[in-house]
């Protein structure tokens, strides 16, 4: 079995992309048929892409973390805190908009750094560290907002979430930008390859002279930064800061990565697959809404769809394996 597994893994890895791509295509087709075409109208496609941006961005950072055998549960909290502080600076402290954007990004970097330092230098288990950080960040946001919503952000702030470029929403461009650079980064930079090495065999990575700690800190900083970028887009879409921002987004981000072929055991996967994974999740949501499925049964169906899709994919690979 395990040998199978190891060989299986090989195949899995080779097919990871097509794997998720095949799931993706089948789901697109099925939903299109069920909604007789509504789902693939241009307007809806853009709608889906826009909905994917935030989870997508965060799942890109998450991908790096998971490749290094880590996990980052704090992303949603960081997004919430970044939003809260940003909005307060814009609205209540009246800082100039540009400064506020920088502050929002800075918050992502700072809390990412804290995660990185604790995980890399103190060797705190990533799960517990980032879970505590989730509570710290979301808690602070809750405290700052004190149960109110900070609204009435400056007009120009709407650009990230509501602006368009060449008739395509800016947020989509942002997602594309980060996805592509993420993919290039992983495949063509030394850091990218070292990351896979660390995930594949941490001890060997240290022996090979890779600066494991530096890289690891870097990874969590990036993840924090991506959360802040997501916060920019969210606040820009809802033009306010509010405590529930990013609630539960960590699960969606991790799920996107895993569906996209990233192995929780580390050392495998990439951002393209991850973003496709994120798309799949959004599409299922969107499809169920277009089909006006009863809200009481939607969650269950969502689970069933994901479960069956993955199952089908795994069985398909099994077959291919036998036949190879």
């Amino acid at each position, binding site marked *: 079995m395990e040998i199978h597994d190891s060989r299986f893994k090989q195949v899995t890895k080779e097919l990871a992309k097509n794997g998720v791509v095949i799931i993706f295509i089948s789901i697109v087709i099925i939903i299109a048929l069920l909604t007789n075409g509504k789902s693939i109208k241009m307007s809806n496609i853009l709608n889906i892409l826009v909905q994917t941006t935030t989870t997508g961005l965060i799942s890109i950072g998450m991908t790096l973390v998971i490749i290094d055998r880590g996990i980052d549960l704090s992303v949603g909290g960081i997004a919430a805190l970044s939003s809260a502080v940003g909005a307060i600076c814009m609205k209540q402290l009246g800082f100039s908009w540009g400064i506020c954007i920088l502050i929002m990004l800075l918050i992502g970097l700072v809390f990412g750094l804290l995660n990185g330092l604790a995980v890399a230098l103190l060797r705190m288990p990533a799960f517990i560290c980032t879970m505590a950080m989730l509570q710290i960040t979301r808690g602070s946001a809750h405290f700052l907002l004190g149960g109110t919503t900070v609204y009435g952000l400056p007009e120009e702030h709407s650009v990230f979430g509501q602006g368009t470029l060449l008739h395509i929403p800016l947020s989509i461009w942002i997602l594309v930008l980060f996805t592509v650079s993420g993919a290039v980064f992983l495949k063509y930079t030394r850091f990218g*390859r070292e990351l*896979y*090495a660390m995930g*594949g065999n941490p001890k*060997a990575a240290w022996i*090979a*002279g890779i600066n494991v700690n530096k890289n690891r800190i870097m990874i969590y900083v990036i993840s924090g930064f991506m959360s802040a970028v997501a916060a920019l887009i969210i606040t820009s879409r809802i033009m306010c800061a509010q405590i529930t921002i990013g609630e539960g987004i960590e699960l969606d981000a991790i799920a996107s990565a895993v569906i996209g072929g990233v192995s929780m055991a580390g050392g*495998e996967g990439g951002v393209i697959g991850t973003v496709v994974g994120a798309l799949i999740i959004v599409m299922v949501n969107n499809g169920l809404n277009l089909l006006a499925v009863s809200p009481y049964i939607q969650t269950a169906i969502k689970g069933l769809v994901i479960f069956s899709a993955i199952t089908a994919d795994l069985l398909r690979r099994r077959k291919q394996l036998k036949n190879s």
Partner: protein
Amino acid sequence: MNDESINTSKGKTVLLNNISKHFGGIYALKGVNFDLTNEIHSIVGHNGAGKSTLVKILMGAEQPDEGTIFKNGKEVSFSSPREAQESGIAMVWQELANFPNLTITENLLMHRFKYDKFNKIDWKASHETAETYLKRININISPTMIMGKLTLAQQQLIEFAKALSYNPKILILDEPTSALSVTEQQIVYEKVNMIKSQNVSVVFISHKLDEILSLSDRITVLRDGRKIFTKNIRELDKQQIIDAIVGTDKKSNTNNILKPFQKISLKTRKEPVLKIKNLNLKRRLNDVSFNLYPGEVLGFSGVSGSGISDIGKILYGIEQEYSGTVIFNGNEYLPASPGRAVEAGFGYVPKNRKDEGIIPQMTVGDNIVLSALRNISICGFVNRKRRNEIINGVMDMIDLIPREPELRIDKLSGGNQQKGVIARWISKDSRVLIFDEPTRGVDVGAIAKIYSLIRQMAEKGLSVIVISSEFEEIHDIADRIVVLNRGRVAGEIDPCKQRWEDAFALAIK
């Protein structure tokens, strides 16, 4: 003291002065001095003697409790292997330290990739560079292969290629040939001699005394963390080294490896336990047929890629994509999984102890009884008394040191870990035992122990298959040797009538 050592360090490439190192209660090294000039300086010693620890200290992977390190006359201390690397030291680690999830190129070039003008990794150029590194040790595998898919032998060779590719001034080789079969070993020997001629200093650790004798300029013997002596090769012969390694007190049990075991005669053979017909495995095995008789030790020998290991894997249910028939005790036997195989009375010692053998987080004791649990548990509960009896019993049998059943097994020296994996099956009564390269990284004394144990078990009527590319060894202990060559049976050797060279000839012809 210090000045004196500075003087003595003059002209030496490296001087390790009075090094001590302990782990918890265990002393790995006690006041060891070691020096290196432009030479091949071998370190030998029993498993757990402290060889790896000594070189890890030189490499900056361990910090000594006491002692100083001088390099070219200057005192140095490396806090990480990287620093050692940057000062021109390269090492092949005893336990493979590679990235199974990455390509050969990435394993070779991890932080030395070729970059294009946008400072992106230029994969084409990188692969080409990697290819040249592989060429240097004349192996031709595509550098785009994933490391995890290669055979252990291939992986070990690539580690060697990596070390060479740094063009080090000092090269440390910790059992670089343990997984290699004769042909590949030759490659290593040539290279080592070559770079020595380019005045690179080499530290060479091995349990294969023949290669030690043929390669070394000087030999240092360690025992229980103490240095016994450093002598020039000319002053030494094999027996002296063995005595020094195992200690004169233990001398007695070392003799028996030199004299071959008495073989059971063909006449006394009864019905075969196993009848294997036309075993085929895609790209690996081709119509392999043989019989295994009760009470015999059957050897399988061949060079790398011969597929000898696959025979074990098939019989034990690891490899299932095979075709052919296996008759076990007269009826068809389909090895579906190791679990089933064990139930049927099979046992198996894998070649790759790190990935397939030990459970690093578990204690030595738990590792030993792992497969016996099913026999010593009453309605699910493990019988602690039996458990401890077994563990202590076996640890004595193959003198696994330190004798601490509750120590984490990954704290053991490589060879002792191997003993632990073997102990797992000695502690449990089976019908057929399969050993794949059982003596890999095991010291001379222990090799004798292990083979005499194998022999004892065979005499109890149990059948043993020993898979090994150590032609001499297997010639010493096997009743018959089946030689494989590129997945085909090249012939059968009767050790009483034929020499090991005959087997080797078949293997490479």
